[in-house]
């Protein structure tokens, strides 16, 4: 509990200042405060700002579904796709959204295995973001096939045509990678939610809330056996998710790298895509959490230190991405393949130079602003940079896909892609879907892992002066 018992028999001298780690929960917030405050976001009256965010999001989402309806009823010709650019915004958006998902898995799985305690304040929201990003990502490959009523052909199901999908195609591997990723992420997220759902169930005042949270809490009582099983399941799922962080975007990159198109056929793609994905994912996590921590008054739980750590991840992965851009050019020259070299020269100085240099500005220059500690700790600054990261990573996929396709080997096969309004509104609308889902999540589910955050509070440590292993304290 928050108050220190006066009759404490043990006096521990505070460690020297330079050894003190910044606490993960500030202001000695008590365990009760954490439960109350996080549950309060779900239980309180719907704030006005929420409606102001939710209604436009739903409208945008509706626009997207209308565009998709128009696309399906009319055909893919309503997009700007044509020879020679057969993939453009559809696959750009797919890779953009699937990449964003990677921060969730990295935070939830890899940082868990690496015992990075700071993950607990952000993992729930990041995992939710992953799921919603995967949902947005899944739409684009589905609708780009044209006759989507035959999309089930993507799965190897026995059928009356006695044919199977092409197992040698990375596009099929993609189906498996993304669906596995979505499934494991959902399970991982849900497993982590169970104890918190039980908290909400126990606090619920209405019959409906009791029923709904009780249903999804799966009869959790918080017994030792439950916790023991929970910890095992969580660790196992973390182990399962960890390879997915690397595999999913590697396989997405195979969609390009396995082909023979100059500009795509590059062995550096898998690690470069994974780094880019984590980069973009952390960008999106910051874009979402920086406003939320202020609006929901979570500054003591999602602290400046958390933002600082995430900025460091952005700096690291952004540097890898920048290195990959340079290395692509080096290999294009060093490899001595004139078509490869042309593809890259054309990328930077051809008709799509504006997209290339937007990408360079956002992805190569922006992350290096985070070398400075005080800038990493300036919330407004970090928020603005995170938006640039999002923009840059969308441009990266656009540049890779469209600039590699738009100039084929023969000048008669040259073209220039221009999006139609349907292209644009489908993409913009996908943000509507994303924000709709995220707003529903933060309104109805605990946005922060209540039980886990309690475990990393300073007073949860038995050796802490306010810790529990003394007379009068408990946890």
């Amino acid at each position: 509990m928050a108050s220190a018992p006066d009759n404490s028999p043990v006096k521990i001298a505070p460690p020297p200042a330079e050894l003190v780690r910044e606490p993960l929960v500030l202001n000695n917030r008590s365990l009760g405060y954490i439960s109350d405050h996080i549950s309060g976001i779900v239980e309180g009256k719907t704030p006005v700002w929420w409606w102001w965010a939710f209604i436009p999001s739903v409208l945008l989402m509706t626009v997207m579904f209308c565009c998709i309806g128009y696309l399906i009823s009319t055909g893919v010709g309503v997009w700007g796709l044509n020879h020679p650019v057969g993939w453009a915004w559809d696959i750009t958006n797919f890779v953009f959204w699937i990449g964003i998902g990677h921060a969730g898995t990295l935070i939830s799985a890899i940082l868990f295995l690496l015992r990075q305690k700071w993950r607990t304040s952000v993992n729930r929201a990041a995992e939710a973001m992953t799921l919603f990003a995967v949902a947005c990502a899944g739409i684009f490959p589905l609708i780009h096939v044209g006759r989507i009523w035959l999309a089930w052909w993507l799965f190897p199901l026995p059928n009356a045509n006695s044919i199977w999908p092409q197992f040698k195609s990375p596009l099929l591997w993609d189906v498996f990678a993304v669906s596995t990723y979505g499934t494991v992420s959902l399970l991982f997220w849900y497993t982590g939610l169970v104890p918190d759902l039980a908290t909400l169930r126990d606090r619920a005042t209405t019959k409906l809330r009791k029923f709904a949270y009780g249903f999804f809490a799966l009869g959790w009582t918080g017994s030792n056996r439950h916790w023991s099983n929970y910890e095992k399941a969580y660790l196992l799922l973390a182990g399962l998710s960890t390879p997915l962080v690397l595999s999913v975007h590697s396989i997405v990159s195979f969609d390009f790298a396995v082909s023979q198109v100059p500009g795509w056929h590059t062995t550096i793609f898998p690690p470069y895509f994974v780094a880019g994905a984590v980069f973009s994912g952390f960008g999106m996590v910051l874009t979402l959490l920086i406003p939320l921590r202020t609006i929901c008054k979570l500054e003591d739980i999602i602290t400046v230190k958390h933002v600082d750590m995430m900025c460091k991840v952005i700096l690291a992965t952004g540097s890898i991405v920048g290195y990959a851009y340079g290395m692509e050019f080096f290999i294009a020259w060093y490899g001595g393949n004139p078509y490869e070299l042309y593809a890259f020269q054309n990328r930077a100085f051809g008709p799509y130079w504006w997209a290339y240099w937007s990408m360079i500005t956002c992805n190569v220059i922006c992350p290096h602003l985070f070398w400075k500690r005080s800038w990493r700790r300036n919330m407004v600054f970090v928020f603005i940079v995170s938006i640039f990261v999002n923009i840059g990573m969308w441009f990266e996929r656009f540049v890779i896909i469209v600039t590699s396709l738009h100039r084929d080997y023969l000048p008669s096969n040259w073209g220039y892609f221009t999006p139609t309004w349907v292209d644009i509104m489908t993409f913009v609308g996908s943000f509507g879907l994303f924000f709709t889902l995220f707003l529903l999540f933060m309104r109805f589910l605990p946005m922060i892992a209540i039980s886990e955050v309690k475990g990393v509070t300073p007073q949860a440590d038995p050796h802490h002066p306010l810790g529990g292993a003394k007379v009068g304290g408990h946890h």
Partner: protein
Amino acid sequence: MSDVFPKWTNKLPGKVLIGALLLGAGVTAGLTYYFTPKYTRVGYQPIQPVAFSHTIHAGQLGLDCRYCHNGVEKSWYSNVPSANTCMNCHNQVLKDDPKLALVRESAQSGKPIPWVQIHKTPDYVYFNHSVHVNRGVSCVHCHGPVNKMDEVRHAKSLSMTFCLDCHRNPAPNLRPPDQVYNLDWVPPQNFAKTQGAKFVHDWKVNASQNCSACHR
């Protein structure tokens, strides 16, 4: 918690799971049986404008298939004859039979008899009759024992599986060229292993399984 969920709900998840499994199995089995060409196409026997009997003509009289469907060896298309072909005989035989009134009328006016097509390949499928019949694939493989049908019906599924089964292993379905139009021919024992394989080799039968073989 007990005030939220009554005790009987403890067994509900298992019941729901079993129910879902049964439902899934039922839907799969139902779709497989009722929604595949083996069910949807086989047995289709529309009423034709003239009750032409293949039993009499091809079976009892022993007319060669090619007497009427004379394009089958040369064309991708196996034609239905014009009424003039019928009149070759029927200007003598049953020449006043009221059942043949439409045939006589068609032969005079040149307006075709509106036969109802039974075997229809979709327009995204290319099928060439001549290449099949000239390489030992008999009519009976795809159309069934037409010489025993009073009125023609859809005998085989003609699904994509049906085509591919043969394209993946053509040898058992090849026969000597002089037996292609003998719908009653029964292969001798071990014919597929010995003779069928030889035909595949000698005739350079390259039954393509590429998508573009049929979906051009």
